[in-house]
């Protein structure tokens, strides 16, 4: 490009600088950096509560595990078992919510983060490394469980799924239905369920993990 005199050169550089400046500011004002980083608990927790309140406002309730029952009913389990003999279409809204959550996971990974790795405590990392979890502090979920589908991992995932599917229905809800909705409504049954969740979780991590890993 032919530049006739020095004054224009200054003008061109100023323009570039100005554009960069605007760009940086727009990024700042749109809080893009903030979105890309891990969201702190005091952002995540209240947002989940607002989602629950929005569902209540829409005349529904926040309970994710009911979807398993609905899906069983959709698959025709109602023919052999009365527990699944209901019109699953009344639960369509929750299936749409479920569909949205899958999209949310996709969007988070592809558009809202750059290989997000949870900043777990150094103590936790050291403890996991001593159990041969080399991916601790390096990935979002452990590659030792989700990375390769060895027979033992498949078995682990099947057992975990069975416990969750059976347990949530027996307890009448999971973390969303009891720990968030039920406790927000100050319901005693939900407090008992949450105590149960913790007994089970502590038993697994402290009693069974040493035998499994």
């Amino acid at each position: 490009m032919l530049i006739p005199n020095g004054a224009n050169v200054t003008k061109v550089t100023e323009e570039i600088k100005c554009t960069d400046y605007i760009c940086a500011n727009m990024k700042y004002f749109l809080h893009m950096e903030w979105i890309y980083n891990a969201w702190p608990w005091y952002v995540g927790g209240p947002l989940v509560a607002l989602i629950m309140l929005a569902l209540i406002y829409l005349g529904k309730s926040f309970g994710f595990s009911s979807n398993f029952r609905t899906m069983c009913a959709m698959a025709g389990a109602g023919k052999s078992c009365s527990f699944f003999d209901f019109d699953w279409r009344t639960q369509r809204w929750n299936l749409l919510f479920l569909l949205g959550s899958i999209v949310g996971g996709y969007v988070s990974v592809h558009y809202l983060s750059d290989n997000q790795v949870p900043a777990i405590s150094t103590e936790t990392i050291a403890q996991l490394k001593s159990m041969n979890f080399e991916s601790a502090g390096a990935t979002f979920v452990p590659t030792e469980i989700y990375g390769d589908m060895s027979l033992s991992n498949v078995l682990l995932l099947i057992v975990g799924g069975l416990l969750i599917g059976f347990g949530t229905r027996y307890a009448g809800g999971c973390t969303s239905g009891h720990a968030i909705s039920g406790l927000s409504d100050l319901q005693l049954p939900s407090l008992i369920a949450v105590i149960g969740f913790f007994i089970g979780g502590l038993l697994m991590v402290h009693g069974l993990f040493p035998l499994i890993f």
Partner: protein
Amino acid sequence: MRQLVFIVLGVLFGVVMYKAEAASWFRIYEMFNFQSFHMYGFMGSALAVGIVGVQWMKRSAKNVDGERVAVAPKQKSITRYLVGGIFFGLGWALVGACPGPMFVLLGAGVLPMLIVIVSALFGTFIYGVLKDKLPH
């Protein structure tokens, strides 16, 4: 139209669970080892907003259909909540995901979650079959 709102709320839920890391196996493990405040802060702040919001809505708000806001009361029992809860807690700590995050992680590309989801469906079916024989 309202259908779309449910999808949008679901997307928001998925993003929050991923970005605030409540869907990470590592965060759940850390929580059950009491080595970080993160998950406790997450649940605590959700409850702080949730309790105030639900109590306010029950007292002075109507829902979108103009009806009084109500949260269905849960059946009175100890056994089913405690025993069912323990079963769920065992599975939650093992796979590091409760039902919501299972689907969030599936969308995030953790395909082995499909195994967990299918067996959770089967676990739910087993409960349905055994329901009348179990203490509630």
